């Protein structure tokens, strides 16, 4: 009998471990800025270098972060661009800039030679000693063209306009690509100086996933950072949300069959105490696809849109609850009315206990699906690093969701979501 009980306990324990087998995150040589998930069932390594500067830090020269980061791989070394060097060994190089941060990433086949090769090339890239005037001119041409293209794309138009109004007088109000005038006026000295200021050991976070151990990762990082200055801890400017135009509705004329609709509502940041309550609430509202309040009302019952959703955009200084959909232009007013009614329902949150229970279970059980590929693990690892979420992140997440109740959701919606301070923007032939 005792043997049976102990076996049952053991089996239960194994089942629990397997059900929630989260990846093991290691600090590389005890440095909390360098994280590793060792996953050696495939001969692949993914490296992502996070840079703690995004378009919010552009200052007066909008677009400079994007411009500078998108220039790095184009530097010419030994008669060919750095990106060509990566491509020769089948490695994939990528870079991107968001509002709060930027990154460059490389995926490669895991051999000691490749690891060494890539770390050396990344080191040259980060040192940015090969930026020329021709490179600046060509990059301007490409980026100005992308800005022009965005002016005809309804999803870019709506996002840019909404950000301009909603984030007024903050670093979040301008497009990541910047404004045309600022990009045109950029010069080589300015770009070099800016890169000097944002690329240093203090501003870089390194995340590695794949077929590599801690020692090799440490060597890789050592090569990669060789000669990169230490830098200083700088306090970044904190922005506050200045938007106070209650329930403003703005239309931007655009020749199209559909009208795009976006609604912005002030919400919470990732580290706010109410985050998990809002996360569960948003899952029910519009964050979980079919069956969510928005999807049910707008798509499943009324057939008004192919896609409608809400999501929490947690920037470092403030959060926003964003709602997005597109509908045939003649249905715009009807759709906005339904969205407004759904927002009222969401705000009142007369949702059954079982719906909240299912949402919590759904979120917890779907957690595993966020770690089923190296690529996803790297994305999560980078977020954990960027938000400085402690190493017991998984435990925090599970506890955070488990502690959510209808009451706590209602309190958070009441205290942390500024429902009356919303912005509604439409882009279309209205």
């Amino acid at each position: 009998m005792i043997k049976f009980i102990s076996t049952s306990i053991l089996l239960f324990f194994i089942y629990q471990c397997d059900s929630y087998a989260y990846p093991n995150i290691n600090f590389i040589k005890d440095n909390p800025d360098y994280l590793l998930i060792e996953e050696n069932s495939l001969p692949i390594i993914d490296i992502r270098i996070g840079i703690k500067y995004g378009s919010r830090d552009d200052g007066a020269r909008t677009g400079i972060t994007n411009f500078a980061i998108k220039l790095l791989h184009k530097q010419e070394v030994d008669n060919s661009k750095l990106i060509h060097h990566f491509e020769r060994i089948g490695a994939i190089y990528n870079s991107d800039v968001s509002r709060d941060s930027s990154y460059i990433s490389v995926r490669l086949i895991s051999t000691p030679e490749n690891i060494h090769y890539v770390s050396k090339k990344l080191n040259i890239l980060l040192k940015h000693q090969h930026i020329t005037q021709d490179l600046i001119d060509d990059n301007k041409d490409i980026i100005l063209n992308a800005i022009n293209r965005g002016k005809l794309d309804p999803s870019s138009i709506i996002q840019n306009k909404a950000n301009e109004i909603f984030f007024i007088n903050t670093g979040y109000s301008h497009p990541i690509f910047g404004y045309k005038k600022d990009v045109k006026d950029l010069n080589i000295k300015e770009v070099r100086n800016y890169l000097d200021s944002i690329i240093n050991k203090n501003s870089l976070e390194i995340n590695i996933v794949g077929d590599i151990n801690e020692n090799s990762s440490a060597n890789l990082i050592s090569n990669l950072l060789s000669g990169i200055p230490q830098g200083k801890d700088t306090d970044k400017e904190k922005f506050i949300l200045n938007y106070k135009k209650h329930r403003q509705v703005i239309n931007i004329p655009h020749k199209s069959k559909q009208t795009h609709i976006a609604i912005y509502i002030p919400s919470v940041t990732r580290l706010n105490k109410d985050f998990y309550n809002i996360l569960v609430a948003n899952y029910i509202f519009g964050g979980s696809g079919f069956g969510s309040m928005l999807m049910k009302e707008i798509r499943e019952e009324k057939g008004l849109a192919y896609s409608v959703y809400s999501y929490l955009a947690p920037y470092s200084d403030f959060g926003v609850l964003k709602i997005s959909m597109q509908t045939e232009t003649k249905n715009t007013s009807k759709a906005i009315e339904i969205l407004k009614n759904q927002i009222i329902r969401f705000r009142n949150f007369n949702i059954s206990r079982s719906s909240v229970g299912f949402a919590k279970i759904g979120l917890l059980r779907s957690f595993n699906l966020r770690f089923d590929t190296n690529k996803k693990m790297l994305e999560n690892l980078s977020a954990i690093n960027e938000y400085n979420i402690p190493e017991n992140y998984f435990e925090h997440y599970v506890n955070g969701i488990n502690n959510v109740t209808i009451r706590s959701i209602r309190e958070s919606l009441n205290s942390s979501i500024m429902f009356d301070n919303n912005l509604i923007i439409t882009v279309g032939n209205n």
Partner: protein
Amino acid sequence: MVKTLKYILVLLISILISDIAISSTNFNDRIEQYQLKNGLKIILISDNRSPIVMSSVWYKVGSSYEYEGITGISHILEHMMFKGTENTKPGEFSREIKKIGGTENAFTGKDFTGYYQKVHKDYIELCLKLESDRMINLNLSENDLKSEREVVKEERRLRTEDNPISKIFEKIGLQIFGFNGYGIPIIGTMDDINAITIEDLKKWYSNYYVPNNATLIIAGSFNKKETKKLIQKYYGKIERKSVKKFSKKDTLQTSYKDILLKDNVSDPILVLSFRKEPFTNINRKESYALEILFELMDGAYSSRFTTNLVDKQIAFNTFISYDTYSKENNLVAIGGSPRENVSVDELKRLIIKEFDNFIKKGLKDNELEYTKSRLIAHNVYKFDSIFYQAMQVGVLETKGFNWQLLDQYIIDIESITEQDLINVAKKYIVEDYILTSIINPL
């Protein structure tokens, strides 16, 4: 040169080693395949990297099976498959999957319609139960069709009518193939979306949604023995039925007359299209040669289009779009947007010149080795995702090819020579058979 070759060698050796030590980049090591008595083909792909499993059912039906009057019917039926069965209420399938933390969706292509769920491995049975139920018990009601038709029309507006590039690709397909095979738009024409009836959908469903016209692919972490039992339990009881072909030939004559459009674009967009023969096991080397040629021309930052056209400020961007594994005659599209001081005609001339130069002068140093090393490495990267593994296998299977092609891929790619590339360039890049399409800004 020596250094580069060394890296390629190391890359190939590492893949070889991984096959032996990790056994992870070869489908043959992962797949078990069999068939139920009712004709349902089962493919089990084992991958235990995470406790996740993906269950997917692929039906051999898509837009290339359609004809004028009912274009888009496969896609509408895909939407209607979420409207409930004799045993489940509308939306219940999705809700059940959501409750267990899973994700699910569906897709329609030219040759297939597929449905999948990705869940924790403990819930595989629920997926098999629900998916097998909607293979035979789907409820198709006028009321559901009424609202879903509007959703599909919104999807068409979003993806095609407000999207200049999709719009021109639809026109190109119809001009070259008419309402035949790959010329038929997957989403269907607006007229046909409006006209399709519930009776049309019932006919489509009862004809094509049968086990002997389907493939069940399970990929990820699962207990093989238990899963086989469950498959038999839920799918084994469904009866085999004969499958008819409904397609009607459109007699439209192919035309290579230029297509000129004005639309919401900031710069002109040039698209040069030509026909590609279907993929077969016999001509597969030619298809792979074409794939390498296109990779060499436009597959990377170091490819010829980027270095000779984009970096030299002729074009803002370039593209080549093609499907190696096409079951029927298909289109290859090559194009881009010229920079401000370059005309569309000039860009066209320079794109064709790139191929002419290749035919006359052949490869540059290491160009073929670099291109192959990219394709080979990318082939390994695909194994990162169970979704992508199932997609690769499913696409080939429903097109009537065999997943074993995937394991043969690297060997085939390695066997392609410079002369093979020159031969396909000569065969396909023939100006008289290129359709030129241009979108100009309004």
